[in-house]
């Protein structure tokens, strides 16, 4: 009994020693020297591994920053604080991180967009609506108003306003792009926060249909594209801004009948005005809708 016990201990102990020795030798031979800065930069990063920088994760980003193949301000989530930290570690002057925010490129809320004759009563999730019936709005391209982007946002930066449209709170938005992925209609895009003008429509409908289904649709008339010297290009009946050549001064904003292309600050203002007008004359609004 005692002998068995000793043999067992000797066997496991011996095996352990042999393997430990082999590993110790292997460790000496195969050791990889790693720049200690990589670990420090990695600690300074948010650590969410969200991939918003385009790298495989925070560690991969740290490696590339230390190599110099990626700029220090490449992490949109960390913002200016992270850039300063990384700059301190690497001993380089900090650049300015461009803040990236999500932009909802549809203004067709419950007021502006025409509703179907039938009412959608299924689960209030955009993914379902998009898959099953397209929700209760006639437009096949616009916001469904189900709030999938709101659910996807871990920073509480998106909420649905009373018009059923998502609104982004710039101060809370980190530009991680979770809402972009969540949106089944690809309405949300990431843009630098200083961009002021957008085409708030994704509809490729022909002009007649576009006018019928939404008051604020881009009808594809192309007037902004003709005046913009290449700043706006027409893609399959939709005006798309080419950010490299874009100059807001050349855009004839008052010529866009539906104000599909407009300043961001006006996008929500107009909605507020319409809301006020509707409250002032609710009866007139209803008759208008019936005529349509």
């Amino acid at each position, binding site marked *: 009994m005692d002998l068995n016990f000793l043999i067992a201990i000797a066997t496991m102990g011996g095996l352990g020693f042999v393997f430990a020795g*082999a590993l110790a030798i292997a460790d000496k031979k195969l050791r990889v020297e790693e720049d200690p800065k990589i670990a420090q930069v990695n600690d300074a990063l948010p650590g969410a591994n969200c991939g918003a920088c385009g790298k495989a994760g925070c560690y991969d980003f740290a490696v590339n920053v230390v190599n110099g193949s990626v700029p220090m301000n490449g992490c949109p989530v960390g913002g200016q604080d992270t850039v300063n930290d990384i700059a301190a570690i690497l001993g380089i002057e900090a650049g300015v991180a461009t803040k990236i925010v999500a932009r909802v490129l549809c203004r067709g809320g419950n007021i502006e967009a025409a509703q179907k004759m039938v009412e959608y009563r299924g689960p209030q999730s955009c993914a379902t609506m998009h898959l099953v019936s397209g929700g209760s709005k006639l437009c096949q391209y616009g916001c469904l108003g189900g709030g999938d982007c709101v659910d996807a946002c871990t920073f509480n930066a998106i909420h649905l306003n009373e018009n059923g449209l998502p609104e982004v709170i710039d101060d809370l938005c980190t530009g991680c792009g979770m809402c972009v992925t969540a949106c089944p209609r690809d309405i949300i895009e990431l843009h630098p926060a200083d961009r002021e003008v957008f085409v708030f429509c994704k509809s490729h409908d022909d002009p007649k249909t576009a006018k019928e289904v939404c008051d604020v649709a881009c009808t594809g008339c192309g007037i902004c594209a003709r005046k913009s010297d290449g700043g706006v290009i027409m893609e399959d009946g939709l005006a798309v801004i080419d950010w490299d050549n874009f100059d807001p001064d050349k855009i004839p904003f008052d010529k866009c009948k539906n104000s599909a292309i407009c300043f961001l600050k006006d996008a929500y203002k107009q909605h507020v005005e319409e809301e006020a007008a509707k409250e002032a004359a609710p009866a007139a609004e209803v008759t208008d809708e019936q005529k349509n």
Partner: protein
Amino acid sequence: MELILIFISAAIVNNFVLAYFLGICPFIGVSNKLSSAFPMGLATTFVMLLTAIVTWLIYHLILVPYDVVYLQYVSFILVVASLVQFVEMFIKKVSQPLYRALGIFLPLITTNCAILGLALFIVLKDYSFVQAIFYGLGAGAGFTLAISIMAGIREELELANVPRAFQGAPITLIVAGLLALAFMGFAGMISV
């Protein structure tokens, strides 16, 4: 001839992943890209081959003569853990990108039941030393085959219009199930 049969049996007919359902974790986890799945298969094959050799030696030269066969589980796990540690160091030295791509699944080969399963099967089937080597090679080849097929299919799936509810893990598990069904077609062809 018998050695070839053992190899084919372990690789295809009694494929560790698709017939015994061993080693599912890396099979699902690292199979999203062929470029990381195939090296993962090779790493696992390497560990399997060395495990087969070392555990056979330990079992027949130490455990059996000293009558401590009850130590087989703990000593086999010791072997697997050490070998995986070695492979991890080796890959980190040779290819940093591959090391990062394999990530947590590389150390997790340690707890990969396919490896321990291999060592125990060799004992169970009472293979000779050469047979054990071929069995280990076959099992590794089978694992590489399965994970590479899976990665190939998943790369194509990236382009397919999968309903959102099925995207990611669900469709992967369905594909794995269908693959296992397909491999069932080999069942009983060789019984070694």
